[in-house]
């Protein structure tokens, strides 16, 4: 391992160094995905960041396309608010002010529906490979907890975010 590192050029050493820092930051924040190494070995094989097939607008997770109407579904947004109150509001404000995590104002403008819904349901994998999620981690330094949202929870939350962003 030493020999390999020594043979690298300075620039790639820097890159490795940066990678080590990121990895140790992730590590310092606790068990990366709550799974043992044995179980995550298969996941590591999948290419994430840097893989040309990775769609940074969609993120990684079960949601590929999300049907979103031009109008707000008020009932869904209300259910989303209930989930927000229990599972999200400790760390996120509905304004643009950062608390533990970023404020939610404008979140639906900055990100697509699948990206948001993948991030809030498949949190660990997204933080491990998604460039935008990783950039947020560098700012917030607390890994967003996986709050084990159901698919409906995620969709309702997205609707609440839309309402928060002024969709009527």
């Amino acid at each position, binding site marked *: 391992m030493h020999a390999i590192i020594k043979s690298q050029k300075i620039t790639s050493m820097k890159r490795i160094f940066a990678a080590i820092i990121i990895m140790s*930051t992730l590590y*310092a*924040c*606790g*068990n990366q995905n*709550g799974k*043992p*190494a*044995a179980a995550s070995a298969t996941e590591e094989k999948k290419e994430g960041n840097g893989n040309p097939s990775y769609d940074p607008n969609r993120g990684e997770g079960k949601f590929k396309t999300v049907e979103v109407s031009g109008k707000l579904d008020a009932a869904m947004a209300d259910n989303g608010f209930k989930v927000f*109150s*229990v*599972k999200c*509001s*400790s*760390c996120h404000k509905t304004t643009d002010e950062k*608390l*533990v995590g970023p404020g939610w104002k404008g979140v639906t403008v900055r990100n697509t529906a699948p990206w948001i819904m993948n991030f809030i349901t498949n949190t660990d994998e997204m933080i491990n490979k998604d460039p935008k999620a990783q950039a947020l981690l560098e700012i917030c*330094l*607390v*890994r967003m*907890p*996986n*709050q*084990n949202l159901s698919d409906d929870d995620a969709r309702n939350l997205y609707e609440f975010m839309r309402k928060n962003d002024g969709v009527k």
Partner: protein
Amino acid sequence: MSYQKLNIQILYSMKKTRYNAIAMASFALLLGVQACKPKNAGNAVSADAAAKAYVAPGKYDEYYNFVSGGFSGQMSVYGLPSGRLLKVVPIFSVNPENGWGYSEETKPMLNTSHGFVPWDDQHHLDLSQTNGEVDGRWIFANANNTPRVARVDLSTFHTAEILELPNSAGNHSSPFITENTEYVVAGTRFSVPPDDKNGDVPINTYKQNFKGTISFISVDKNNGNMDIAFQLQCPGVDFDLSHAGKGKSSGWFFFSCYNTEQANTLLEVNASKRDKDFIMAVNWKKAAELAKAGKGRKQAVKYASNRYDEKTHTATSTIKTEVTVMDVKDFPELVYFIPCPKSPHGCDVDPSGEYIVGSGKLAALIPVFSFDKIQKAIADKAFEGNYDGIPVIKYEAALYGEVKKPGLGPLHTEFDDKGNAYTTMFVSSEVVKWNVKDLKVLDRVATYYSPGHLMIPGGDSKKPSGKYLVAYNKITKDRFLPTGPELAQSAQLFDISGDKMQLVLDYPTIGEPHYAQGVAASVIRDRSVKFFKIENNNHPFVSKGEGTTKVVREGNKVHVYMTAIRSHLTPDNIEGIRVGDEVYFHVTNIEQDWDVPHGFAIKGATNAELLIMPGETSTLKWIPEKAAIVPFYCTDFCSALHQEMSGYVRVSPAGSSVPLSFSTGTNLPKSDSASKK
């Protein structure tokens, strides 16, 4: 071993004095008695042992191993073959590190008819079974001192229930189960006058006044809830261990007993006089039918039934006042005594259910009884007499055969999947493997030192595994680096897959292990709960989200509804608390992910801290003693900003007019401006 004996003899024969000749003889005698006492701590291990116990980082063990904690009162969980300690489950002893017995929710679990009991002596464990095979749902644990039986839920590894036993004193032959976990039994080690009789009698009236009680505890198939179905009042003796029959013998239960002399003093001598004591055979199916038919007398007693509700995360203790007792003398064909040499300890039934092995700790042989012969002896009335009104079957009529010269001090026997039995020899410090059919000794291996119980995963079930055996040794001496006078007890793992047993690993354990259980990891692993769903949390003081946090005063009681999430507590500034208040911190961990507990500790708390699992609510009671600013914080390193997870309580003097207020993330303008003046 014989080398060493030879060496010593040579050594002594060099000095031909009479004194040395005597010394030599006594040395030889000693060595003869301790024929298998190991001589060197390291010489019994072969080269591939390390590989056999090695579980690579990130890989799982093959077996869960549940080990009784003895005087620690708790149960430890190890992985096998690595011997890695995975968890200590608090059961009968308070555990300040996670608040067990200190939090308001768990205090009722340790309630008894004597009040709150913070400790016990936990000896034996039995995993729940279905059709004689380990099903991985629950594990039962006995408390020896203040007689109780506990049930631990193996989806949460949390003690779910503790049931006290009346008419008992020293709940030793417990908590062994029937083939489908219909019942857990609890036999008293110390006979005493029944609870409703005048106990103020001379101790030497043992024979007239003392009784031995066996409790049959029913287990609800669906939720595991335990109740005392009935008790059998038996002659006053010391019930030691027990095991249920299996297959054809599944309707019977077998209990070893000693002190059939009914001695009440210097038992070491006075309870070791008779050549044979007994194994008591109980037709429990018949007893259950009689109890259902309303037989027996209703006796007024007092005992606690404590249950933990996973939805409210709270335990409730109920004092019960009646139990059904059947005096076995009044019900013929219910109970029989089988003579068993000599002060039998282990009472173990082979996987087929045909052979019952009694391990007489003072006997020089191991008797094996036949279930078929016992049945025939009962049918033929092949009795040698009766003991306190109970028929005693003729020894030869029940005996299948004897294992001759197995070693010294046989204690416990477990079985493998190839028809072999393994018995620990306390005095000669070895495990002896013998064949159940022909009763021939096949192998013996030294242990370090003096093993009590041993464990083969599934070794007391219908389907034992044949891979590993663990001996739990009572003496440690030189096995580990010295740690002063008190040493950890040593466990030793043997590979038993071949003809010869092979020592693979030594590892220290917590407390003093007695009996243990093991099961393939797959039976339990996938059902393990990762967090509690916050939606299902029905705790009366839950905070589902920070919006619901608050501080409520009711007279001098103050309830703090608090949430914990990475990385802050809400509220984290609390004012208006007064000296003399009783403050209850009801902390809800609103994380919904695996392995993210939060802690809660407050300066000067005279009880303990809390460890709150994701989705759980726990309560710490705190009585502030003087006006001060008192910090509180999270004790479980949870994130990069864990050190920031803290807060303050302002305590004012009694009668102070500082208003009650609470907040997070708000610097009160008033305070700010006050400080700027």
